[in-house]
């Protein structure tokens, strides 16, 4: 009851705001559009978004875009779904890239193919602007449903001062799991049984934990999920078993990683305060580390066991289903403008995400920026080995089945193998209705 009441209240308030904004617009004539945007990382993203939208409105007198802050990625999904249900969807949304498949299955997305065709462009030409790694999360059933807006990959951050002190060369960061384990052992400081500095920290909270499991599984040669079909995940596989066993060994065997599940902010705070000598975290945290670290740091690729590979993260621009034609057109203009090389580059410098548009890195401002901040280059270079972010039917609950089990392993309450068997069973159960309608629907 509380949920519904809160939702209704929220909708009522949103409605009041929407009508308040709509009244002056009708007199003037420009097409009114709303853009829902989340702020997933710490920082001044909301202010930057205001600057960006103001610039767009000044350059497009026939469109009046309003940026509506909608909380986290998850909150943005809730609010978008609520407004679609209420029949008043926003014209464009910055949506977490791995929610697109789920929304497409629920018929909540506008297919962008016709808008691309109306511009006289083709799908290949349009998608060709973006890094190939990003296309997997934007294209569903060979149709375009999203336009990559800001993206990230996981990185290895190293406290260079502590590495030097331990006799390690920070300019030759660890490249394999074996090297990383060795580094972590050398960087861990103990007083008797008590650890005063951890060798490495890897975040594990809902959302981050699944992403890190995908990262470790990929560097171990695995896939995590079926990129072509939303009804399958590969939890109970050798590649994931190796990944989880290694993570568990860092905690329980080598004792170089703090026990238990540690959320992202705790990991970055630990690193900044010198309490963890290395961490694996998103490129989205790079600006935060750059501004707050009082020591020299290095960033490097995520080390491999079998191959170098990382998943992408971040968000795409979408148009929800049910947006009227004129608003659709206006939203499309906004989306193309926001993902153009210049704006993409500007947003990347402001936030720390990398710019999905490849041409952004050829703009003079960006070339300058990369020369001044070579650490930002590592993230872009790692894109060559990046792959799509897991997205399945009911992505969040399917991911959570794995995360709950991983948390038990990191707390030493379960063995990796039995944890993965349990996770696979629970995930298969959640995916069942979708499979009943697709892969198991036989003639």
């Amino acid at each position: 009851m509380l949920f519904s009441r809160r939702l209704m209240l929220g909708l009522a308030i949103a409605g009041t705001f929407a009508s308040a904004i709509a009244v002056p617009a009708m007199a003037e004539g420009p097409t009114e559009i709303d853009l829902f945007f989340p702020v997933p990382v710490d920082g001044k993203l909301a202010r930057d978004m205001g600057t960006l939208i103001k610039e767009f409105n000044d350059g497009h007198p026939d469109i009046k875009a309003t940026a509506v802050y909608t909380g986290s990625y998850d909150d943005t999904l809730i609010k978008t779904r609520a407004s679609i249900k209420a029949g008043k969807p926003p014209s464009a949304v910055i949506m977490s890239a791995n929610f697109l498949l789920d929304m497409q299955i629920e018929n909540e997305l506008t297919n962008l193919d016709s808008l691309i065709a109306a511009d006289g462009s083709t799908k290949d030409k349009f998608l060709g602007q973006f890094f190939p790694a990003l296309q997997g999360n934007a294209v569903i059933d060979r149709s375009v449903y999203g336009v990559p807006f800001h993206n990230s990959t996981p990185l290895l951050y190293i406290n260079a001062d502590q590495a030097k002190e331990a006799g390690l060369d920070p300019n030759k960061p660890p490249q394999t799991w074996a090297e990383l384990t060795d580094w972590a052992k050398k960087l861990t400081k103990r007083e008797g049984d008590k650890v005063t500095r951890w060798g490495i920290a890897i975040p594990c909270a809902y959302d981050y934990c699944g992403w890190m499991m995908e990262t470790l599984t990929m560097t171990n040669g695995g896939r995590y999920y079926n990129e072509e079909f939303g009804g399958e995940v590969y939890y109970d596989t050798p590649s994931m078993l190796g990944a989880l066993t290694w993570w568990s060994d860092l905690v329980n065997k080598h004792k170089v990683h703090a026990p238990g599940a540690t959320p992202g902010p705790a990991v970055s705070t630990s690193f900044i305060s010198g309490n963890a000598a290395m961490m694996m975290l998103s490129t989205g945290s790079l600006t935060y580390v750059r501004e707050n670290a009082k020591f020299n740091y290095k960033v490097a690729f995520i080390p491999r066991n079998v191959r170098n590979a990382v998943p992408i993260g971040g968000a795409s621009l979408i148009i929800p289903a049910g947006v009227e034609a004129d608003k659709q057109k206006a939203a499309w203009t906004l989306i193309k403008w926001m993902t153009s090389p210049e704006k993409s580059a500007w947003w990347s410098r402001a936030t720390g995400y990398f710019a999905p548009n490849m041409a952004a890195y050829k703009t003079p401002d960006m070339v300058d920026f990369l020369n001044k901040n070579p650490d930002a280059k590592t993230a872009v270079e790692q894109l060559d080995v990046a792959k799509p972010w897991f997205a399945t039917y009911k992505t969040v609950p399917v991911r959570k089945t794995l995360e709950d089990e991983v948390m038990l392993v990191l707390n030493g309450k379960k063995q990796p193998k039995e944890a993965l068997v349990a996770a696979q069973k629970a995930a298969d159960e959640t995916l069942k209705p979708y499979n009943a309608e697709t892969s198991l629907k036989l003639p």
Partner: protein
Amino acid sequence: MSLAEPAALPVAAAVPPRLHIVTRFTTRFKASLPAYLLLLPSLVFLALFTYGAMGRVLIDALYQRATPKAPLRFVGLDNITAVLADPAFTGAVINNLIYAIGTAVPSIGLALLFALALARTNVVTSALRAALFLPVLIPMVAASALFLFIFLPNVGLLDYYIGRLLPVVPNWLGDPDIALYAIMIITIWKNAGYYMLFFLAGLQSVPEDVMEAAHLDGAGPFTRFRHIILPELKPTFLFVTVIAILNAVTQVDHVFVMTKGGPSNATNLVLFYIYQQAVEHYDIGKASAATLLTLAALMALTALSFRTMANREGGA
């Protein structure tokens, strides 16, 4: 009511049975019309925002989709059966019971202690009362964000002080054995000051003359507490207990901010389970069914407590 009663009685005595009912009804209605009119504004809002939503939940709880693209169909009580069979729901109920008892008992105990210590008004007690009430004024979300940093393993405020004394520093929010208790500490910290207010008010109603008489009869402080103050505070206890239990079910802001029900569902409470079903699983049917079950439990609890209170006022 007092308007309606005298008008209805003479009519009931005079007319034959059939007519009697109709007339009685219309007369009653006419007489109580102003009362209904006065209630109308609140009724409209209650209907819109409370009963409307409840009705909607009731309907939603009866429908479900078999597969993602299939249309909604009527499934009767299937959603409720599914919720009851879900280990995550039973886990959330058990967590919620531990949480309710583990927060209600200590926070009420502390509140009573504070109230007894600060019952007399002077400069010092006023300042202390304000200090103890302060956590109530901090929004739960802000408090949770603060505690998130206090609980940070190794670098947080708590570990900075307590960590030195312990052989192994616990991961307060990352260990499924500890996380729920960490969450409970925040609730106790936040609510004890609030309940203290009720006990302070309750203490005002302890009759001064009885206390004085007991004093003259040679009753010591403990005897006075046990035989005069505690019995006088019984209604306050009842009221605060109900409020504390309702809070334990309806306040989950800190779970949202700090743990999202994790690790491994260790801090998953019923309301958060409903949120997960509605938002993460996008399963409105199951979310509504779980809401109905919670609502029924809360209503039963409230009805029970009101009856106990009414009994007390009438009988004892």
